[in-house]
């Protein structure tokens, strides 16, 4: 179906452009729906995972496989230490990790037009991470992450809503889908 798919993809690209923020005639976005507790937990989960992702890519990405212990400053203050072991299968695009992240008042924020992608968070605590990090689409990520105690403080959503949690977190990642619990509450998000 490559031929048809290419034409379809090309036309869809064209159609996708119609959703692109590239022109001057931008329609005013509707007011975002209210963000309740589950929504706020979901954004917080995403903030935590993306902060870990940043820490990993700043410290271990591209390093030789094996044991590592690296520390990096966070973009807006604080630090992140990543230690443990990582092996890889470059052909499959997969990295097997058994790591621990120690975040010390690590500050990170993200702004986007999608209300549920906005956060400004300071994170402290220790989190373990085991599983596969994959370079999609040749493979898929599968991770389990746990923390006995993690402190998240800041704002989530747009307009910003105050957020604070200081409790155990359990988190699973399947592909780009995150599910888990924050302080015993179920939470989920898409990366």
């Amino acid at each position, binding site marked *: 179906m490559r*031929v048809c798919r290419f034409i379809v993809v090309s036309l869809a690209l064209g*159609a996708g*452009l119609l959703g692109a923020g590239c022109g001057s005639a*931008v329609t005013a976005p509707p007011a975002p729906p209210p963000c309740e507790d589950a929504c706020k937990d979901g954004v917080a989960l995403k903030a935590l995972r993306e902060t870990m992702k940043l820490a990993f890519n700043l410290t*271990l990405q591209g390093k030789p496989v094996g044991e590592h212990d690296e520390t990096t400053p966070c973009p807006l203050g604080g630090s992140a230490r990543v230690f443990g072991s990582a092996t890889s299968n470059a052909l*499959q*695009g997969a990295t097997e990790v058994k790591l621990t992240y120690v975040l010390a008042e690590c500050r990170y924020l993200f702004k986007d037009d999608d209300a549920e992608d906005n956060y400004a968070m300071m994170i402290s605590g220790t989190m373990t991470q085991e599983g596969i990090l994959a*370079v999609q689409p040749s493979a898929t990520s599968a991770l389990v992450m746990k923390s006995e105690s993690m402190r998240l403080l800041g704002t989530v959503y747009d307009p910003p809503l105050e957020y604070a949690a200081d409790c155990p977190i359990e988190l699973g990642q399947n592909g780009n889908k995150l599910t888990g619990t924050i302080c015993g509450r179920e939470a989920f998000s898409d990366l």
Partner: protein
Amino acid sequence: MRGAREPGRTVSLSRTEVRQIPGAFGDPFRAVEIMPGVTPIVSGLPFFFVRGAPPGNVGYYLDGVRIPLLFHVGAGPSVVHPGLVQRVDLYPGGYPARFGRFSGGIVSGETAAPLDRPHGEYNLRLFDAGAMVETPFGPKNRGSVLLGGRYSYTAFLLTQIASDTLLDYWDYQGRATYDLTPDDQISVFAFGSYDYLGQRTATQTITLFGTEFHRVDLRYDRKLGDRGTMRVAVTTGFDRSRAQEDRYVRDRVLGARTELSYYAGPRVLLRAGTDLQVDSYDVQVVSGTLAPSVARVASFFPSRTDLAFGTRADAVIAVAKGFEVTPGARVDLFASDGATALGVDPRLAMRTEITPSVRVLSAMGIAHQPPSFVVPVPGFQPGGLRGGLQKAYQTALGIEADLFEAITGTATVFHNAFYDMSDPLGTSPPQLSGCAPGTFPTDTLAGDRTRTSGGFGGGGGGGATCGIPRFPPGTIGPDRSGGGQQGADSRSTQTAANAFEVRTRGEAIGLELFVKKKLTSRLGGFLSYTLSRSTRTYEGRSYIATFDRTHVLNTALAFDLGKNWRAGTRFTFYTGLPKAPDPTDDATRLQPFYRVDLRLEKRWQLSKTAWISGVAEWLNATLTKEAIATTCTLGGCQAQLIGPVTIPSVGVEGGF
């Protein structure tokens, strides 16, 4: 040689002949696909390569008015009622100076002049109905009014079999002329087209894709005695393509042109003209985070106003008896989103009569075109002239002979060289779908990627990644969960986006043969054959173009069975597309394609001018499937087939 075929033009078929071509459904524009030099992408799809030039580089004109779309959605008919079209010409290269701004070919339709009596045509088919009527009015029939159109009830039919799909199209034409004096005429010609593909849900109808265009051409024509003609025209238009949530790309068109044709002497015909077009593009969007590839392509389509101004002239000079030469040139100025570019296109055509029945024709020229989209879609014109103009050097040399028993034949060799061409279709190298046995690391387990790749590619892995390291072996790979704070890219969108940005050098060389005995004869037919090779060069690498087909053959026979019964059959054959390297198969191309089309007509002559016909027609009666790619699994690789794309049609046609 007045009225003789222009050297840069390929064969021409009259409306009455086109009606006899099986699979064309009586549509003159559909007949383009049987002409030599035309390479189909996929059987039934109205997009084609012309002498190696991609679909986006082929311009469509109706009465000198540029139109963005020639056919309705899918395998639909052309956007103009056939009864209005007198002739369709294909100019595959080295075309006259009056055509420009396209570096591929030109498809030009001419409407029939008004008659001095009321006349009309109508048709009723399984999937649409159309009609066209024209009548003179005023003293001495100085004026005429024409109305025509077509409406598809495909939406109703689909509703009966698939309740969630909506497919709809219609078109309209209107023309009024009035002779102010025997030498002066004013006229207005309005036409347009609409296509819609939607999906019905429990609560609403979602627009998947919709296109439309409208044109109004106001003209003043003056005869310059018996020495020539002059036309001044103003065109306004509106193009729009829509997607979900009322998002659209819109183009408001305003143009003006002058055309002069004048015999400066018994041996010299001067043709000159100017044209100006202003396109005001309006991209109506919603905000949001885009996948990186889509964002890259999006930057090519800003809201803006484009301007193109051209002036041209050529002279048909009868140098000596039997030898005619046509030097000419056109100059086009393009302005878009703050960028400007100038295209200077010299043209030269020659026609030499060797004997009264044998002629040699040659045509050469340079053609420039702004960057183009993959296929013609109303409103989708890249802005900013990024990468500069596309340029083509086109040359062709042919021989035309009147053979025995009213049979004519042509043989033409051509060479086209393309520079800085935008050809996303032709530059995407063939790829395997899936990993061929042996190319996936056998000591690893593949991940379960169900529903995780997101995007157009579905779960398709794609052969290009099989066995190729995703990052340096022995190192730790990146964490790319979520694609880096942006919408995730699938490999299909990345490939499409990359191909869209690429500018390549292209080349096409070939031989075209066309032999025809008038299809309206008791036994008529044609044979159209193209032998060609189309290549692309990119980053120092040369390869066969993705849609290169070595052999393309169309042949048809039309028989008069007596008692006003006519039957016709058409055979189409073409070489398969280049094939992706496959360790399980040494073949370099996919399997070839063939199909047989059938047509049967019974005609009743109701009066001297009135007639009615019952027509049964079937495109791809052999129900042949077409190979378009290769799919691999652990069990091996095999051709991916689509179809059969088949269109049976039963209908009634009539006229008076």
